[in-house]
């Protein structure tokens, strides 16, 4: 049963520290998405990649967030420096779609980040 995996599942850190979240997409999927979910803002798209190339990162605060795909099995989301307002659940999703089949996304379990 193929799944998206994310590490760590929980992270508590102090303001100003660097945070790195990792995602392993489903093998063979060529599109990877990073989302952030909060009670106030709901589910927001931060960035996404297709065939490891970044397509859109307009949802990310550029000065502190960065997203990369060093290889097809790993996507990373970094926050440096972290701030309390970054506290949220961060989801990674992957997909392998087409215009005809649609672009169904499969979500990982999420990383719950708390910045104190």
């Amino acid at each position, binding site marked *: 049963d193929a799944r998206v995996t994310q590490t760590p599942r929980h992270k508590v850190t102090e303001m100003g520290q660097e945070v790195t979240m990792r995602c392993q997409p489903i093998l063979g999927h060529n599109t990877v998405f990073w989302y952030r979910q909060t009670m106030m803002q709901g589910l927001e798209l931060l960035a996404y990649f297709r065939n490891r190339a970044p397509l859109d990162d307009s949802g990310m605060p550029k000065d502190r967030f960065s997203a990369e795909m060093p290889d097809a099995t790993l996507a990373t989301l970094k926050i440096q420096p972290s701030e309390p307002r970054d506290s949220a659940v961060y989801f990674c999703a992957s997909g392998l779609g087409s215009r005809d089949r649609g*672009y169904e996304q499969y*979500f990982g379990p999420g990383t719950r980040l708390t910045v104190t």
Partner: protein
Amino acid sequence: ELKVEQNPLFLSMQEGKNYTIYCNYSTTSDRLYWYRQDPGKSLESLFVLLSNGAVKQEGRLMASLDTKARLSTLHITAAVHDLSATYFCAVDPYAGGTSYGKLTFGQGTILTVHP
């Protein structure tokens, strides 16, 4: 900017009753997705709707898409407690090109089914 609005945002239902969740969106699209999220959990794909008039059913849930009205509905039949969750619709805008699945999500509808 694409806007996706769900209503109601909160839905308290009795077991055995029927109800519908509505998802309106603001721009042309013929691709809409429904997801379910249990408390503290991830999102699970329920339905993929890819054309005007598309209808999908799974158990007590049925989803449909009317692209002319820019409206999708998620109908719940004879609700049971296990259906309690948050339901999201998400729209993939299509403007002659392709967005590779860049979704805009609705706010979510929190459904509670009680005896």
